[in-house]
Each structure stands twice: as structure tokens, then as C-alpha cells.
């Protein structure tokens, strides 16, 4: 029985992460910010971008890019442009080849981390967070899956 429960919880965790991934592609009235009308190739080729409050020179290029982006190596194209209205610098990136969903997740996380490293000097951590007893329920597992995926999902 415990094995069955474990596998159910595992499935719920995966489902939670997957649900978050799908939610951003759902065009429900008032919910979701997707480009669902894009065909998959176009969607994969879109630039993912963050705006960083710094000068363009601060971003760096190639191996001098912030470490999370540099780690993705030559697979990335990077575009750096001043943001209008003194809002900093637009840092955009996309894969030269056809990325998987996992690749896109890594890119979103890398862009957010790069921005934090430049603006704050470190990447904000929340875990381990103090908490009480967490009963191993399917709903709880689904939320944990969603939380674990949250840094790699979203609208970038």
C-alpha cells in the first residue's frame, strides 16, 4: 500500500508541475498570458527577455555573461538593448536550435537569476523554509510540484 501511495503522490507532484506549465498556455478568459496561436516552432523561437536595471555594458557578452546564462553556452543567441524610458537594459535570449520544454525552463530560470545577480548581487533562496507537519496528500504533492516548477515557468 505505501508503494501505491508513494506512486500516487509522485504522479500528483508531476501533475502539479505540468499543470503550471499548461496554465500559462491556456487562453481562458482573464487567465493566462500565452501565445497559443503561435505554432510550436514560432513559440520556441521567441526571444525570452527580462529588463535589468543596469547599463548594457554591465550585462557582459559570451563567457562574461552572468554565470547562469553563460552555462547555457553557444546554444544561446543573446540580444542586449537599452530599455526605453531609463528602465535599464533588455536582456533577451533564445536557443539557436529547437529547444525542448526543459530547455526553455532552464532559460527562464537563467534569465531571472542573471537579473538578480546583477541587481541584487545574489540569487534569492527560500528553501529550507521552516514549516510544520506536511501530510503527504495528493493536493499537497501537486502544490509542491507546482512550486518546484515555478522558477522555470511563467510568461518569459
Amino acid at each position, binding site marked *: 500500500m505505501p508503494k501505491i501511495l508513494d506512486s500516487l503522490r509522485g504522479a500528483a507532484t508531476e501533475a502539479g508541475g505540468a499543470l503550471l506549465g499548461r496554465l500559462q498556455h491556456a487562453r481562458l478568459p482573464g*487567465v493566462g498570458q500565452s501565445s497559443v496561436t503561435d505554432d510550436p516552432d514560432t513559440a520556441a523561437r521567441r526571444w525570452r527577455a527580462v529588463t535589468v*536595471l543596469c547599463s548594457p555594458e554591465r550585462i557582459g557578452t559570451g563567457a562574461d555573461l552572468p554565470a547562469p546564462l553563460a552555462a547555457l553556452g553557444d546554444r544561446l543567441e543573446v540580444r542586449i538593448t537599452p530599455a526605453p524610458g531609463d528602465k535599464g537594459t533588455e536582456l533577451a535570449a533564445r536557443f539557436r536550435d529547437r529547444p525542448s520544454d526543459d530547455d526553455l525552463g532552464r532559460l527562464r530560470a537563467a534569465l531571472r537569476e542573471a537579473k*538578480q545577480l546583477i541587481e541584487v548581487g545574489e540569487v534569492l533562496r527560500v528553501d529550507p*523554509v521552516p514549516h510544520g507537519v506536511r501530510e503527504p496528500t495528493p493536493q499537497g504533492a501537486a502544490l509542491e510540484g507546482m512550486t518546484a516548477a515555478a522558477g522555470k515557468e*511563467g510568461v518569459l
Partner: protein
Amino acid sequence: MRAATWTGVNEVSVETVPDPQILNEHDVILRVRRTTTCGSDLHLLGGYIPFMRAGDVLGHEFLGEVVEVGRGVRERKVGDRVVVNSFVACGTCWYCRQELYSLCDNGNPDPGITEALWGQSPGGCFGYSHAMGGWAGSHAEYIRVPYADVGAFVVPDGVSDERALFASDAVSTGWMGADMGGTRPGDTVAVWGAGGVGQMAARAAMLLGAEKVFVVDRLPERLAQVRTHVGAETIDYSQTDVLAELREQTGGRGPDVCIEAVGMEAHSPGVHGVYDQVKQQLRLQTDRPSAVREAILACRKGGTVFVLGVFGGMVDKYPLGAAMNKGLTVRGAQVHGQRYTPRILERMARGELTTEHLATHTMSLEEAPRGYRMFKDKTDGCVRAVFTPNG
């Protein structure tokens, strides 16, 4: 350490949990001296914000003493008595530089959830679900405070814990509503909700020069507090037609600024109330917006409606026609507390802002389940239950 946790819908438990630790250089660890329930906690408690995990520590409005500092902290030191803003903000991103701290780009470690729901992610908030970053809350003996130089403010010696506690959220939120609602000398301001935030919005409007201020609620003990401690006029919506009363009181114009301090569980009498309850329970709308509707209908032409109450999703029967045709400005925000806290503490020190009356029930952390029951059911005149985790 001991902490009050959410363990399920309408269930709070006090448990032993691990102590917090410094994880980033700009963190401090606080020994919590005072921490209070907030009306917005009730949305979490009731399961209206479905991103709580059993065991999550509640609480986002608090004050304490610094007991440990990260090596990147410059302006806070061990022993400081500080009040902390409820939203986690870095102080260096574009939004923080515009003093829009609750919109911080770097305060929510789980941005994918709110980006998927709302298009962009606001900052994080202590003790306010995994949608807002999963930060542990303040109903605990200790709490980790990230970006401490930005969000933790030293309390002046002459200001008591009991008073300064509410600078954390209730006063700063209320002040934001009056300020960003554009209150000007001579204005008439109406506030929906006589809880801590509503009372402080009314007080802020008066301090900003409003000539007439009305607060709308139905609970006699809260309306009495408004008259006694805030000095504003009151309207009991269970006894009075609010729109007619406000028209009569304003020469037919309506208030210049209308501040909604109620949120997604607004109570409303009559058919409207039943309609919203049914639709919310059937999940045909997530939030009950009756106070927002009334504020829009009450507001004078060209006036401003500021939504301070917390909403999470979608509402029905939103009077967009009234908002558009009357030329209203409708604004809202989670609290940009860091923008207001220094001047609030100064006014507290001068005695212009008093908040002690809000703490109707002060008790130990172990009594948090009872405190939340009283606060939710509004029994014994409870306006705020305040916990003292370290005695």
C-alpha cells in the same frame, strides 16, 4: 521553535518547526515580539487562495528584535528593534526605485505561479502562500527577513511595540490608499471596511487634509472605534442606504476618493450578497466584490477608487460602464510599505497616529487557534488578535 501554521481549511495549529536560518547575505533573523492577524489571512484560512501547503507558517504583520545578521547587511544590527514590511522587496530593481515595492521583480522566488495567473509576478509576501513566494510567516518565535536593509525599520525609542506593530501593514496599507488615491485638502473620502486597514486609511485621509471622511461597515464595535479613535464619521450599511447617505452628505456629488478595504470575502446584505455567495461557492467567480461595486457607484464623477482589499482572481458584475462613463480612476495595489513606513513611524512618535486600540485581544502564540477563531467570527469585539511569541 514554536509557530502557528495553516493545517487545512479553517484550521490553525501551533507546532514545533525548525528554526529559520540565514540563506542570503542580506538576511537578518528576528526574534518576534508582536505579530498580528490580518483580514487578508482569512482568505488563506478559508481556502480561497489555493496555494497554501499544510504546515505553512502564517503571519505577515510583525515587529521584533534582530538577533543575527547576514554579512551583506549594512544598516541593521543585532539588538535593533524593527518593524518589518509585509512585502519582500529588493530595493534595487526598477519597481523598487519607483517606490512601488510590492511589485519588486526580485522578491518572489516562485514567479511562475502568479505570472501564469496574472501575466506578471508581484513581489513576495511573508506567510502568504506559495503564490507569493512561499516565505515563512511571522506567527513564530523567529523569522528570517530577506533584504533587511530595505524592509526592516528601526522603531524610535518613544514608540511602543503595540503602536509600531501596525506600521508593518495596516497603517502603511491604509496610508497608501489615501495617498495614491490622490486625497487632497478639502476632499471627501469614503472608506469601505472598518477593520485595521480601513480605520488607518480613514486616519491617513484626515492627516492628508480631507475635510470629511466616512467609514462604512456593519459591526458596531468597529464603527465605535472609528468615531472614538479615528475621528471619522460612520455609516452602518446594515441600517442605511450607503449610496443615498453619501449623496446626501456630499451635496449630491459623491466622495472624491473611495477606498475599498474589504477584499474578496465582502459581506453584503440582500440579493447582492446571496448572489455573490452562490457564485463564489459554485466557483463561477473567485471573489466577492460588493464593496468595490458600491465604491464605483458612489464615487463622484472624475474621482478615484482605490482597491486595498485583497482579490485573487475574477469577479462578476463589475460596473465597468459606471467606471468608464463617470471618468473614474480605478487603482489598486498590495502595500508599498517601504515607501511609507519612515514617515508613519515619525507620526507615531509625535502621537498623530495611534493604533493601540486595534489590538483588542493580545495573547500568547500558543493561543493562536483561538485568536484566529475570534478574529474570523468577530466575537467579543475582536478587531485584531495579536500574538506575543516570546512572552
